[in-house]
């Protein structure tokens, strides 16, 4: 089924950035993915990537680097934040669709 291919390809991406080998620890990647539990200044950068990506500035990245993150770690953490936010949107959309299609069927009316 074509749609299963899309979901499978998406899961493979999510699984890789969270659980595969990386320069940033897996626990930190998971926090970036969830936009939750990072300490300053990384939390500001990751929060913007998740919620207001157009407002990310050079200074946000510079502050994260100055706090000791390497560029390769930032590459990974920014990707995790982007993939994490879009995974939440994807799940929210699919859940709303599932709810609409189940409750929308007359044979499921009680």
């Amino acid at each position, binding site marked *: 089924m074509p749609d299963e291919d899309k979901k499978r390809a998406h899961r493979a991406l999510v699984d890789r950035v969270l659980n*595969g080998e990386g320069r940033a620890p897996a626990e930190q990647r998971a926090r970036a993915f969830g936009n939750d539990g990072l300490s300053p200044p990384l939390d500001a950068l990751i929060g913007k990537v998740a919620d207001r990506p157009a407002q990310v500035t050079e200074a946000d990245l510079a502050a994260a680097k100055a706090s000791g993150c390497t560029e390769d770690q930032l*590459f990974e953490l920014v990707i995790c934040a*982007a993939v994490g936010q879009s995974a939440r949107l*994807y799940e*929210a959309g699919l859940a709303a669709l599932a709810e609409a299609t189940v409750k929308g069927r007359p044979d499921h009316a009680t």
Partner: protein
Amino acid sequence: MRLDILNHGYGPRTKLLFALIRLFSGHPVPDAAKLVFYRPDFYGARAKAFTHEAMRGPSAWSVGDRELMAAYVSKVNESAFCVGAHTATARQAYQDGPRVAAVLADLESAPVAEPLRATLRMLGKLTREGKVGAEDMREVLAAGVSPQQVQDALAVCAAFNTTDRLADAFGFELLSPEGFEAGAKHLLKRGYR
């Protein structure tokens, strides 16, 4: 781009490839393409596979419809690079620039079929607010969109909510209009793989 590794951190073979692309296309390699060549095992390889599946895999939506969804989601995210790239691609796919421009200017008055309009409206809300409800989905289904089409549109939305964020966070450099047109031609010929 804002990380030096994304500008200079490529091996000799990739650098050669970039030089050849520049030579044959007459345009610099777009940052969107460079990004997926950096440590492709971390992100690029799987991101390309998912994006290609969403944008060019089997679907009742046309390639033009899906490129328009990509442009529309990017507009909501204010991601200038992605708006430019996918506006150009949708325009070429449809052979209809005014329709694409009208959708991005005002979805409600744009000359598009209701199923597509309802779908774009839902994708816009999901992207903007981070959530949609069953009622939003019922409106899309009532406009004549199949559940499978909704799922396909959500995959496009997921792919571009990722790409938009990376374009903005890493600071993809905007292309010239000719550069965007050349990129669009490539995306229609070869897809995202």
